[in-house]
């Protein structure tokens, strides 16, 4: 092979007349987990302009919700944020219960809190792990995913499904906790904390990892608020807004936990806020497991919405009729509108429901935290280098199903 020693002085080098390059990333690019497309205008390696395009995972959930009964919405909300479906289930159930004016028994509230916090853990583990993996650190990802697997095993034990549980019900849950629930939840939560601490040691001592996150993708608190950011991304910018603290729902006001906030709002803060929240979730689970009563009903005592026990359905005419009416006509929610919000994995998960009094929802609007966070991606990466797109996008934790619905 001949050596490649071209004489550059003699070779005619032509500089491009247009100094900008268009670059298309996605929608099916490995670093764009989820399906999102970024069309970028580059000047050298700097991003001058960017157009973020979403919608590749749009499945028309809001339209589909208008065609079934209220209970048939649960499988749809499961598939919105499919990394933490339990939080969506509970969020939707709470919205319906707010309209009906019922409250579930205390045992169920604790059950929902514990399952929800475990789901939040799995959400954050995925985000933190995937973020590390995209920057080349594969081991923490595998560790975190193994820890997540433990959470999903617990979910399978409790609900029968690993991922899309459809376990929430208006006025309760589909099943009471299993006998080993408390033991299992405690073990899982402890294990997750252990894994997180180990993973932290691997990552936070790593110069390459830190350099790629530090002071990259900064967004100020004002911008984050204006963009409608909520959840870990907003808290990383230094705004201590957490729905669980600001507007406590269920039994969240009984727990002692902290809301971690970041200082600069860069990728590192978004990473570390999630890591801290994992530990806070473990704290909540620990306290909730202690306070949760061992016996008692799990479903609200309201025959309008809660299915009767199977013995009654098979052995009494009233039970049969009640069951039939709830399943076939759907439970009736009084006409009106409601906006109910909970803290989802990525921020404020809101449900704006409009009911016309029949068994079918008139309008189900899911307020997706991801959609608004992704809308800020443009502002986060404009002016950064092309290599920074990966950590920035990873730290926002865009979940395609929730963003596009």
């Amino acid at each position, binding site marked *: 092979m001949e050596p490649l020693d071209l004489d550059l002085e003699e070779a005619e080098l032509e500089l491009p007349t247009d100094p900008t390059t268009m670059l298309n990333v996605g929608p099916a690019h490995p670093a764009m987990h989820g399906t999102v497309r970024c069309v970028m205008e580059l000047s050298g390696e700097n991003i001058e302009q960017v157009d973020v395009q979403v919608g590749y995972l*749009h499945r028309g959930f809001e339209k*589909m919700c208008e065609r079934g009964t209220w209970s048939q919405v649960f499988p749809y909300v499961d598939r919105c944020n499919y990394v933490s479906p339990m939080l969506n289930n509970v969020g939707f159930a709470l919205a319906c219960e707010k309209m009906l004016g019922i409250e579930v028994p205390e045992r169920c509230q604790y059950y929902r809190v514990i399952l929800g916090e475990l789901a939040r853990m799995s959400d954050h583990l995925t985000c933190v792990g995937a973020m590390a993996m995209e920057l080349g650190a594969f081991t923490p990802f595998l560790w975190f995913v193994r820890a997540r697997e433990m959470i999903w095993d617990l979910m399978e034990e409790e609900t029968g499904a690993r991922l899309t549980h459809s376990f929430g019900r208006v006025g309760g849950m589909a099943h009471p906790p299993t006998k080993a629930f408390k033991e299992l939840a405690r073990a899982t939560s402890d294990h997750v904390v252990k894994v997180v601490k180990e993973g932290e040691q691997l990552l936070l001592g790593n110069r390459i990892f830190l350099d790629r996150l530090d002071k990259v993708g900064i967004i100020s608190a004002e911008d984050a608020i204006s963009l*409608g950011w909520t959840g870990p991304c907003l808290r990383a910018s230094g705004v201590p807004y957490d729905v669980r603290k600001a507007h406590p729902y269920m039994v969240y006001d009984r727990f002692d936990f902290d809301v971690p906030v970041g200082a600069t709002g860069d990728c590192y803060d978004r990473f570390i806020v999630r890591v801290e929240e994992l530990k806070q979730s473990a704290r909540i689970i620990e306290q909730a497991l202690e306070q949760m009563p061992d016996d008692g009903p799990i479903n609200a005592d309201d025959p309008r919405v809660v299915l009767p026990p199977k013995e009654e359905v098979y052995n009494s005419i009233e039970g049969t009729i009640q069951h039939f009416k709830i399943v076939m006509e759907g439970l009736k929610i009084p006409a009106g509108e409601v*906006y109910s919000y909970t803290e989802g994995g990525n921020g404020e998960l809101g449900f*704006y429901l409009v009911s016309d009094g029949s068994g079918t929802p008139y309008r189900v*609007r899911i*307020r997706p935290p991801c959609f608004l966070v992704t809308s800020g991606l443009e502002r986060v990466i404009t002016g950064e280098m092309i290599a920074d797109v990966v950590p920035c996008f990873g730290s926002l934790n865009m979940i395609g199903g929730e963003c596009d619905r």
Partner: protein
Amino acid sequence: MAEALVKAVQSQFGAAVLETHNQHGDETIVVDAGSWKDIAAFLRDDRRTQMNMLTDLTAVDYPDREPRFEVVAHFCSLTRGHRLRVKARVGFEDGEGAEIDSLADLYGSANWMERECWDMFGVKFKGHPDLRRILMYPEFEGHPLRRDYPAQKIQPLVPYRDVDNIEKLPPFGDDMGMSFGRQTHAFGSHEE
């Protein structure tokens, strides 16, 4: 606290506030579509309200009513911890003429949510910097979340787009490659 909020808006805008209610504890005002943006600016800047976040913006379609669409915005104040729902009614019964001022220069979050609202309902936001479809593709016909849009409606196939500077053609001709399921479905009245 939230009642004081409604009073503050009422005292400022008087007749532009058409209705108020607080069903399930959510304070709601229905306002005249003409003063939509003024009210949003007031809510954002006034010392008593300080609504620094536009949490949600969407629409609801009532095909039998005139005005047909209800544009619903949820405002939230992180500093004072209160919330307010503001609604405005726009559009004729046939779905035309649904226009309202854009809030995109007041709130960054309005940008995408208004695009979604336009995409799904066909409500136009006047003054929006970039009112494109967001969840649907550009060639999509109709607005899917309208009540009169049938859920099983089949959209026409999209021809290959002519994009400047891209000469690369797809690797297959018309009769090669993947067959499109939608073309071969015998779906109701749809025939080849």
